């Protein structure tokens, strides 16, 4: 099957364009935008890991290594599209317009972090694996029913394909021809379980055959491949041609979460060598250097701007008002039931010391 699902690359590991047909679509501006977003989310990710180590946020799921997959796919979206992330996809949500402060709040255990910016269709991170897939199908189907050209994208990992929700989601989308893009980031490990123990198939893309959905297997560290293939899939969706499964092959350098120790189950040397040879950011930088786009000075200034933006978000996070206990109660129902109302009053009384 792997022969049928060859890895699609637009740019190779040395940063050379290997598919000339895209030449006309690649501008200096576009690559600069890519670069800026890659640096931005990587800066955020590193900062978040260090915040966790200092006890300033809780457990955190890092995505370092998967930046091209997240930035490339999110930049292909249009303003009114829907984004259904998992817990490791805030690189995509922040690229699509989520606020850094809110993402940090989420990791600090604050429900407030789940509220997207006004007008942005960003759903909350799916914590139980694969549960977000049927939601995306439903939301996309709703757009279709409304007669818009808006689509939905849903993010999930390799492990998620073992869950029933994956199969049920794909089947429904196929039957309904829902305008949804199933964006799979295959980073090869579901926490500790390697892909070969997760499934017998060599690819995830091939699973689409069973549902008669088009699929493509792309180099997830090649931001051009990610961007253009996602654009295509979205375009199909908008045109009423139904869902697409994209398998974006990538790698997470670090742990599953800051509470996990990857050395327990894999040789971290592999991460290091991948970082050396196949880093999504490095690849884009090489590409830009070949073209003479974006000099050192500009890159440094971007890095500085991103660091500043992230630091500012951390400052906002720490200045954010303390948790208000009413939040627990006020949003369970539109109108609280007497049980909840009474429990709230009791808690507030107790906190006031009555």
């Amino acid at each position, binding site marked *: 099957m792997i022969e049928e699902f060859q890895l699609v690359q637009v740019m190779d590991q040395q940063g050379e364009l290997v598919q000339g047909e895209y030449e006309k679509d690649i501008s200096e501006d576009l690559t600069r935008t890519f670069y800026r977003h890659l640096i931005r989310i990587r800066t955020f990710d590193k900062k978040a890991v260090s915040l966790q180590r200092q006890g300033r946020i809780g457990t955190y799921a890092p995505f370092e290594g998967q930046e091209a997959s997240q930035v490339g796919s999110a930049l292909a979206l249009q303003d009114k599209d829907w984004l259904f992330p998992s817990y490791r996809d805030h690189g995509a949500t922040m690229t699509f317009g989520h606020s850094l402060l809110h993402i940090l709040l989420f990791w600090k255990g604050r*429900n407030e972090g789940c509220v997207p910016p006004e007008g942005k269709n960003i759903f909350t991170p799916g914590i139980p694996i694969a549960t977000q897939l049927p939601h995306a199908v439903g939301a996309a189907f709703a757009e279709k029913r409304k007669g818009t050209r808006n689509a939905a994208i849903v993010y999930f990992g390799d492990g998620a394909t073992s869950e029933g929700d994956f199969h049920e989601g794909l089947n429904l989308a196929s039957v309904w021809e829902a305008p949804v893009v199933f964006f799979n980031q295959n980073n090869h490990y*579901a926490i500790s379980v390697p892909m070969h123990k997760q499934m017998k198939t060599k690819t995830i893309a091939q699973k689409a055959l069973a549902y008669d959905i088009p699929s493509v297997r792309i180099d997830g560290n090649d931001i051009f491949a990610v961007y253009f293939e996602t654009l295509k899939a979205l375009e199909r969706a908008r045109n009423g041609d139904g869902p697409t499964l994209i398998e974006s092959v990538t790698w997470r350098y670090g742990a599953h979460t800051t509470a996990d120790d990857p050395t327990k189950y894999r040789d971290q040397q592999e991460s290091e060598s991948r970082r050396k040879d196949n880093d999504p950011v490095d690849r884009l930088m090489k590409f830009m250097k070949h073209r003479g786009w974006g000099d050192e000075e500009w890159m440094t200034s971007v890095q500085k701007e991103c660091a500043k933006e992230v630091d500012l978000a951390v400052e906002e996070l720490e200045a954010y008002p303390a948790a208000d206990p009413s939040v627990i109660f006020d949003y369970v129902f539109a109108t609280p039931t007497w049980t909840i109302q009474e429990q709230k009053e009791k808690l507030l009384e107790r906190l006031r010391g009555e």
Partner: protein
Amino acid sequence: MSTLTKMKTLTMVQAITDAMRVMLQESEDVLLMGEDIGTNGGVFRATDGLQQEFGEDRVLDTPLSEAGFIGAAIGMGLNGFRPVAEVQFLGFIYPAYEQIMTHASRIRTRTLGHFTCPLVIRAPYGAGVRAPEIHSDSTEALFTHMPGIKVVCPATPYDAKGLLIAAIEDPDPVLFLEPMRCYRSSREEVPEEKYTVEIGKGKVVTEGEDVTIIAWGAMVKVAEDAAKEAADKGISCEVLDLRTLYPLDRDLISSSVQKTGRTVVVHEAHATGGVGNDVLAIINDNSFLYQKAPTERVTGFDTPVPYFGFEDFYLPDSKRVLAAVEKVARY
């Protein structure tokens, strides 16, 4: 216990590992299955080293598929094995709820005992460890309400090992709840060898005269702290650790609440439909005339377990328990 018993000092999670090791050694029928339990030794290290010791055939890393592997465990159970399945968090058991509710719990009934399901499902549960959403659920009542499955919940390393061995030996399905907050918080002397703690029996943790505090899991420590604080105020509390949530230890509850006549039930699960209500029913049935005050319940709220930034508001703490103790004592 004989004085010759060799002891070792273990945390609860180590005691759980030890119980599984003892049972894996004892019987080839016992096998473990779950996500990340092999090479990784489990997300809480509960199965640390067991795959290396017993092989990939007996300690199985499953795909990410709770309904799938618990369903499969049922199949293995009815075909002669004694599977111990780990779900990473109780909050992730829901895909498998159908398998448990519609099959595991009623196979014996359905087939008049021809097929049985000697299955143990281990599930870390509960709040207080600053975990993300869903990870902190405490929905034991969804299972005590389900006919045909026993539910146990240790609060100490000793009870954890003894109860888990008893659960694996039990001929019927058992949900084994592991309070995450207790996993590593303290250590205790645990016998090296095999022993059991009887399912269906609670225990008196602290003896007292005035008020009975009934708790399980991570709330036992909270109850004990409250009892200490109450003692400073001159109220003597008896703390019960139920250890088994289905079937409840009616005799233990009755004897204590008949002595004190005043009761506080503590659980971190939601108030409505919580196991505390079943405790109340037992008091009502057996000990109504002994009661000197209405029983107080200190529980979580009828809200989803909040994000951990709000966790401290949600979780019963010793202050809340103490206030309830004072209320029933003064009634």
